[in-house]
């Protein structure tokens, strides 16, 4: 191989390695920031309490990676961290987000998830699924008689879907730069 070819390969390899590094960093940093947002921001902006950023981030990573195992592990990780930052038993959010990660990744293998309309619909659906399944688990496994408000969940689902579109766009841009 010529010297030019070797240099070209080296350069491509270096760029690829750097891109992987940034992606790995984003893989940890983005969910951390999402959880940090949920912990800190609603203290001052109570109206943002409806935002389930860790869930949106889980959906995003599952949709873009298109690997069910990766999606479900990511969801489990985010959910368990979220559980550990509350007084509820560890595993509740973990199970729900594991399923969300798995299903989102499975959907991404069959549909064109670049379509904004589909992203909105999926975000809404997964938000509703997340809240409903959490409520079911809470009742069935722990026997908590908490109330489920479908109307409010639908509204919050729509709002989360509306936030998901620009959020996914920003995350896509970050990924593109990496």
């Amino acid at each position, binding site marked *: 191989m010529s010297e030019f070819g070797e240099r070209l390969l080296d350069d491509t390899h270096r760029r690829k390695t750097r891109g992987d590094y940034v992606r790995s960093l984003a893989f940890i940093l983005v969910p*951390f920031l999402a*959880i*940090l947002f*949920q*912990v*800190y921001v*609603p*203290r001052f902006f109570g109206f943002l309490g409806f935002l389930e950023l*860790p869930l949106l981030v889980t959906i995003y990573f599952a949709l873009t990676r298109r690997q*069910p*195992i990766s999606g*479900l*592990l990511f969801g*489990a990780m985010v959910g*368990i*961290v*979220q*559980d*550990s*930052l*509350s*007084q*509820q*038993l*560890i*595993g*509740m*959010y*973990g*199970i729900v987000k*594991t*399923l969300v990660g*798995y299903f989102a990744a*499975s959907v991404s293998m069959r549909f064109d998830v670049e379509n904004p309309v589909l992203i909105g619909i999926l975000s809404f659906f997964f938000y509703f699924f997340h*809240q409903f399944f*959490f409520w079911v688990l809470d009742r069935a*496994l*722990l026997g908590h008689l*908490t109330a489920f408000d479908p109307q409010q969940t639908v509204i919050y689902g729509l709002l989360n879907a509306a936030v998901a579109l620009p959020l996914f766009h920003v995350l896509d841009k970050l990924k593109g730069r990496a």
Partner: protein
Amino acid sequence: MESFLTRYRNLTVLLIVVAGQLLLLAYQVKTSQDVRLLRVWSVSTVTPVTRVLEVVRRNTFGLVGDYFVLLGVREENRRLQQELGNLKMQNHFLNAELATADRVHALAAFQAQSPSKTIAARIIGNGTAANSAEVFVDRGTSQGVEKGMAVVTPDGIVGKVVEAYPMASLVLLATDQSFAAGVVSQKNRVHGEMRGLGHGSCKITEVQNEQKVDVGEWFYTSGYDRIFPRGFPVGQAVVVRNGSEGKEIFLSPSGFQGGLDEVLIVLEGVHQLIPEQAVAGTDVHMMPPPPPDQTPATGPAADMPQVGNTDADRLKTAYKKIGDAQGHVYGEGAPPNFNIKVTGNPPPAAPKASAPEAAPEEDPGDVHLDQPDFSAQENDAAAKPKTTKPKSTTPKSTTSPGGAPRETR
């Protein structure tokens, strides 16, 4: 088998991960033990960042705020120098200092007055659980905070510590659906259980329809929950109605009314008695009673010395004199003749062998209306030197439900 697992690899991993978490849940429920290591890692990762964010927020917003305040003060000072001179400028400075007094001062005053040992804490973040009200505070086990400790403000109870970590603690707020505390009403001494509703107000349960609770009545902690010391204000009843399973009482929690920023964690609680008078929560300044009426009066009470200041007081004194004149002890035997006229000093009353020696009658005019009546407080609480603050020293001074002086901005 191997080909089956390879073929359904995704599903297998999903089932393993979900089953693992279900087992973890089952372990926690069965043994009532927590996976503390995971929680400590998460909290120790997140709370330092929120702490830094909080410091940055306070310093940046505070500095900007201070800048504008200083601008205003400078201009104000110039104007005052031109108009009134140094004396008024000093006055302005002192007033500005009072107006910008931090809530920390109120907490410190409450801390000094309260017999319970407390530690001030700052809220640095929210919990992540859905539909629950939890916050993180910047005090943890290294500062002596333990799980189950009460969290209060001078205005009332706030919640309880549900998890204590080395540098932070998770506090379940009183408005959470899973929160409960034993309470007792101030006026009618009705015991109940306060429960959060998941939003701004709370509900009192375990109160029978036959029991009497008034709208506007204050509720205090009863101390029976072994978390909150007795005598901390909880809130005021806003709705009281009969229900199918007992009285429905909705409460406006007083601890949240001033906003939550700094709180006190009760390290060692001391029970206190419930204040007797309903002066709590009133921001109304009450003047001392008017001086005795100087105009001459007629009738049996006219010749009596003016002990009380109201008609009822005067009537009571007149009846007492009539009773003394006839050697009558009220509550025993036939009633005395109220139609006789008693003039001047009455003759000494007949000796009362059975009656205990009467304490000197307190002049109603000496009743201090700024402080709630804590006369029946426990010895340790009562032994604390009582300080009364003159009203005139502050432009607006109010009394908090617990009797603690509260500075209002």
